[in-house]
């Protein structure tokens, strides 16, 4: 993170106003209580991610919901409540580097066995847009939903898509970036050891709910690391956590520049300008 300007490889910039944040991950239970951990005001000691039950879902869907669905719904609702927006009105961008790893493992194990009769629930939970589908059922949102994957670049790809929607379609949207862990033997080839999710409500114009203005461009600068070793380990292990430096920058509450990891040959440069929330 720096207060100096960044040399960008692509001159185009996109801006948006962040109105709400949702965060769940190792020792992160929500955005307000996570801020002092991200700024270093409180020591960070990682503990296993705790996912709240998906109370918004109808009973049948609640029974079928896996970790990635619980995580996505919880952070999305937190961000939308903070932004004071109607959940059913928001277009959404879901980005995840993997789907439900336990379900994937179970299907592959069954298909390699003598009994290949996988269950309907296993099958429909295997689609990459399962969490997006469950979330729209939970909130009643009939709005468009874009569901993305860019492997380790998934957070950056989702942020680019969400910022494009805000700028081109002049609409609010909610970005939901999540990852959950794989069991063995998949874990050995995809070492995501715990769940983490970041949700952002982004708007084209400032409002009384605005927390910060962000301006994005594509850069070849090196991605910022997190100063705390345990936090940095999470950033590197869980693709959705590539967005944590942005949240740390917002938590600082002063104007800063930050470079987020994206593809092998390009990163995302962001300037973050905090905006004092207006009293009601």
């Amino acid at each position: 993170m720096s207060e100096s300007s960044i040399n960008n490889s692509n001159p185009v910039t996109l801006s948006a106003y962040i109105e709400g944040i949702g965060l769940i991950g190792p020792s992160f239970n929500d955005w307000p209580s996570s801020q002092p951990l991200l700024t270093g005001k409180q020591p960070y000691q990682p503990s296993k991610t705790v996912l709240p039950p998906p109370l918004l879902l109808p009973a049948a869907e609640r029974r079928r919901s896996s970790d990635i669905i619980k995580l996505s719904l919880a952070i999305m609702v937190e961000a939308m409540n903070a932004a004071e927006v109607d959940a059913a009105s928001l277009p959404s961008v879901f980005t995840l580097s993997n789907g439900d790893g336990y379900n994937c493992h179970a299907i592959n194990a069954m298909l390699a066995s003598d009994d290949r009769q996988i269950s309907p629930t296993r099958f429909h939970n295997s689609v990459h847009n399962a969490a997006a589908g469950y979330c729209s059922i939970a909130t009643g949102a009939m709005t468009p939903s874009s569901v993305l994957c860019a492997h380790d670049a998934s957070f950056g790809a989702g942020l680019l898509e969400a910022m494009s929607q805000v700028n081109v379609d002049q609409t609010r949207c909610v970005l939901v970036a999540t990852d959950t862990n794989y069991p063995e033997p998949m874990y050995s080839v995809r070492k995501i050891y715990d769940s983490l999710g970041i949700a952002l409500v982004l708007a084209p114009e400032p409002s009384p709910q605005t927390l910060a203005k962000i301006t994005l461009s594509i850069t070849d600068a090196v991605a910022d690391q997190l100063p705390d070793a345990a936090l940095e380990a999470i950033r590197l292990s869980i693709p959705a956590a590539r967005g944590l430096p942005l949240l740390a920058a917002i938590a600082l509450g002063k104007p800063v520049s930050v470079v987020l990891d994206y593809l092998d040959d390009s990163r995302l440069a962001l300037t973050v300008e905090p905006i004092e929330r207006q009293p009601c």
Partner: protein
Amino acid sequence: MKPLLLSHFTVTSAIGCGVQQTLASMREQRSGLTPCNFDTVDLPTFIGGVSAVDTIQMPDRLADFDCRNNRLAQLGLEQDGFADAVKAAVAKYGASRIGVFMGTSTSGILQTELAYRRLDPVTGALPSDFVYDKTQNTFSVADFTRQYFGLKGPAVAISSACSSSAKVFGSARRMIETGLIDAAVVGGVDTLCLTTLYGFNSLGLLSTQACRPFDIGRDGISVGEAAAFALLERVPDNSASDAVLLLGIGESSDAYHMSSPHPEGLGARMAMEGALKMAGLEARDIDYINLHGTATQSNDAAESKAVNAVFGNKTPSSSTKGGTGHTLGAAGGVEAVISALALQHGLMPAGLNTRELDPALGVNYLLENREQKISRVLSNSFGFGGTNCSLVFGRAN
């Protein structure tokens, strides 16, 4: 929206490698569906396979990407001079000004299915030659496409089940309008795998015959595989009269059920209305509808209600899945190219395999090819999770 030019496009599916074979199959009303003989699958169903995929060799530099899905991607992008067109676009715009937006539902999951048959009997470990990130991961086919062409712009896989490669047009349109990129390689690739065949079987959605969209006796889908690509650019001042433009995109969600469409087709209706609105068109301006038309009871019933609500029952319509099978995450891209061919060649393709139209559906469903000049086509793609996308394409003149 500002229209975008499909400056080049190609499709490879069970009805042909490249547009010439595809067009010939459409003219001959030839289906590519055959009884399922894929791998060790023991299901009484039909598939739309692309046998040429077995002959594809990946270049050494991309060897880690080797899997059926990326082989089919390579087979597809080497048809119709598409690769040369992308190289020309790189020379024109620069590699960092071209984005990649690829739709897929199952990516290279077949590679993982096969690897699970070779787990270490003692440790349970995956075989050492299994490369997760370049094969199974959903991004794989977008990453492969980007690296095949040496592109440096933004890249993403869009994976919303069977709307995936229709939705790529929406994301590419937005990013071109931001000015971050000047052109986009968009498309969809999905290949046969056990997950989808046994998965659809578990839902009772696999036809025992070659699928029969909109037939009174329709009994489910035939799974197919395909690769479709298009190069999207801003419309130049002068384009050929038969140039194909993307005019509008409508996207919506059902918010209803994970694997059944909204029974009244409400989400589908919103997508079609949204596409017309973005194109600045009325329903009467559409000459032909390429239906999602999967041949499941519920899809065809819900889609016909939605089409009726927006268009009435006169607009010529058909599903081309009787020829190609349901190519899932590639279907939107395949049917975008078929829509482009329909516009360029004045050919509204017949829906194949359908013998007796379901009178309850009330759609002007074409059972024979109709040849006449047409100006605008709407193409529907809907998917699990209640995801809907409609595209409107038109001739430049």
